[in-house]
């Protein structure tokens, strides 16, 4: 099993990591815990699985791309 993990913007800077690959996880929350070595989860953090918004308890599968990022501020 291989899951691609991405962090963006202020979260990327806080974690000190843009990309990571982890080998085992069943939910986005577990992906976070493993990839960040159990860093605290920001309250307003957003999660996307395979480019679609998801929840922390959404399940993940082999080959998924899981992204964590702060509230968006475009436009």
């Amino acid at each position, binding site marked *: 099993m291989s899951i691609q993990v*991405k962090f*963006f*913007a*202020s979260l990327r*800077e806080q974690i000190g990591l843009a990309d990571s690959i982890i080998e085992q996880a069943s939910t986005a929350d577990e992906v976070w815990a493993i990839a960040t070595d159990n860093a605290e989860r920001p309250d307003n953090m957003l999660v*996307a699985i395979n*480019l679609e*918004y998801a929840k922390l308890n959404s399940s993940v599968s082999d080959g998924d791309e899981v*992204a964590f*990022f*702060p*509230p*968006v*501020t*475009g*436009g």
Partner: protein
Amino acid sequence: MAIIISEQIFDPWKLISKHQQQSQLASQFGATASFIGSMRDFNDDHEVSQMVLEHYPEMTQRYLEKLEADAKRQWPIIDCLIAHRVGHINPADAIVVIACWSAHRRAALDACNWLIEELKFKAPFWKKETRNDSDVWVEHNTSG
């Protein structure tokens, strides 16, 4: 229907005008509504000298395409353009352009209004402002 994500500065009016010419739909639409968001040199009482716009490229493209498709399902729009800058941005630069074309005014106006709200609160872009000498991530968009 078009999505443009650009690292280069663009003239929003030329962008809309060019898209409209290329679409060759003139005389079919009676209404065009547009919104342009541009960079101010102050924000929340701070002077801002420049800005970097980060995004999640694959998700951005997909999310903006979804927005256009959703708008087209909700309103009888004939055509739609969304353009967004990324990378280094200077004051007065256009950041986002939304334009909607429809037969009658309500569809174009309502779709344009909906698209900018959706984009601002859901499309994966993040602004980092340079205030005096420090770089600060913008934490949230203004409510209006």
